[in-house]
Structures are given as C-alpha cells and as structure tokens.
C-alpha cells in the first residue's frame, strides 16, 4: 500500500472511531496537545489509560468475588476508571462507568457483575482499535510521511 493510501486509510479509520461512538472530542483535544516538544504525548497518555484500566478492572473483578463486597471502594475504583476514560475520550467506556456507579450505589451485585463484563468488553475493543490506529500511524511515519490531521 502506498503512502497516500495509508494516510487515507488512517483518516477513514479515525473518522469511523468517532462516528461509531468509540471516541469523542476529548481525543481530538488530546491530539491537539501533541507537538514537536511532546511528539509521543498521545501514545503516552493512552498507555497510561491502558495501565490504569487493566489494574482497575482486575481490582473490580476481585472485589466482586469477595464474600462481603466493599461497594464504596468499588465505586471509588469505577470513578477513577470513568475519569481516565473521559480524559482520553473513550466515550463508550465512560458511559458504562456511569451506569456501573449507579449499581454500586444501589449495592446491586448482579448489576455490577453485568456492568463489569460490559466495561471489560468495551475496553478490549477500544484498546484494540487504538493500537491499530497507532500501528497505522507508525507505518506512515516509517514510509516517510506525516500523520494527517
């Protein structure tokens, strides 16, 4: 695939992520902060999001396996996940976190379990999609091109 085709593929891919509700305008703002002084800013922030999310999802899974569930602690963890997903524009994950917090507040175990599965699923999807996007960007850079805005 030549450079122009790669660049077109990236633009189409990015557009689809917004169109399908995976990303929102916060991701655009993140991209606007990347410049020659911080060339890897978006990748760094998204990597932090991946680390945060995986840690929190593990902790939430363990919390829901306990005999006595600490809903207050779980709520705090979901709150963190909501904050970080909102900060990178991971729209679907953020929306599910809002629902998840409501179940924590209601101390609804079934609701929390269902939400956790949904959040894990959506997180897995956005992680794959962002990694694919970064790979495409790297291919463009390796081919001597620039990333289209």
């Amino acid at each position, binding site marked *: 695939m030549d450079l122009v085709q790669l660049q077109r593929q990236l633009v189409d891919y990015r557009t689809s992520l917004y169109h399908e509700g995976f990303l929102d305008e916060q991701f655009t*703002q993140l991209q*606007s*902060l990347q*410049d020659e002084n911080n060339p890897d800013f978006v990748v760094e*922030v998204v990597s*932090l999001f991946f680390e*945060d999310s995986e840690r929190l999802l593990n902790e939430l899974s363990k919390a829901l396996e306990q005999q006595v569930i600490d809903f207050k602690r779980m709520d705090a963890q979901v709150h963190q996940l909501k904050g*970080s997903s*909102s900060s990178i524009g991971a729209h679907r994950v953020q929306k599910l976190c809002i629902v998840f917090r409501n179940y924590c507040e209601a101390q609804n175990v079934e609701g929390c379990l269902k939400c956790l599965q949904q959040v894990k699923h959506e997180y897995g999807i956005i992680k794959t999609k962002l990694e694919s996007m970064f790979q495409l960007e790297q291919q463009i850079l390796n081919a001597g091109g620039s990333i289209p805005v």
Partner: protein
Amino acid sequence: MSGNGASSSSLNMISGEDVVNNNLSALVVDDSPLLRLLHDIHLKKYGLKVQVAENGKVAVDLFHLGASFDLVLMDKEMPVMNGVEATKELRAMGVTSMIVGVTSKNGPGEQQAFMEAGLDYCFEKPLTPEIISFLLEELNKHNNKN
C-alpha cells in the same frame, strides 16, 4: 463565578497563545497519573512552569516548604488528603493562589461543598482549552492589577 457547567460562550475567551504566561507557575494536584500528565502538558503548552502532586497532603507540604504557585488545579477525590481538605488547609495557611477545583460530573451539591472550602472556580475534568484560556486571562488580569 463557580464555573459549574460554564459553557464556552459564556466565557470571555482568548487564545492561550495570545497571552504571555512565562512568569506564571502552576501546581497540578491529582491522584491520577494520566490527569497529572494531561494537565501538565496542557498548561506547559501555554507557557506555564508546572509541578505536580499526587494528593492534597503533598500539595500542602509543598506550600509549607515555601513553594508558591499562581494557579493550583485541585482534584476533589484523592487518597491521604482530598481536595476539599487540602483547599481548606491552604486557605487557613493564608495561601492566596488561584485554586481551581477539578471534579467528575457530580451533582451541584458536591461542587458547592468544594467551592465553600475556598476555591476560586470549579470545573469538570478534564479542563478544556477554553477553560484554561479563561483561567489564564483571569490570572494575568489579577497580576497586572498588583
């Protein structure tokens, strides 16, 4: 002005690039490494010198040690010392920095309690370029008066 849900159109916006902020310093107080990085880079892009702290106690300790900042971005929910406690303590110490609360989408009651601790403004996180431009304009106005 609490800035609660303040819309872009209600703010007197100028581009951050129009304002020279080389003399301004900021402290970003947040337990999330992601939010610290995000606000750090965002403020540096506007020319501010930025330090970060992972909770309210670290922030208060910095001021006790003699540090000073023009702007403090204070997260509300943090371990060890939360934003409400840290803000109260800073104001009790006589700190006159602009302290801006940064919260998740909580109800107006929660932001009210945070404002009453001594904030100048309170906004939902993450801060947008429009909000940051507004804050820097306010800071520059305040510095030009003194």
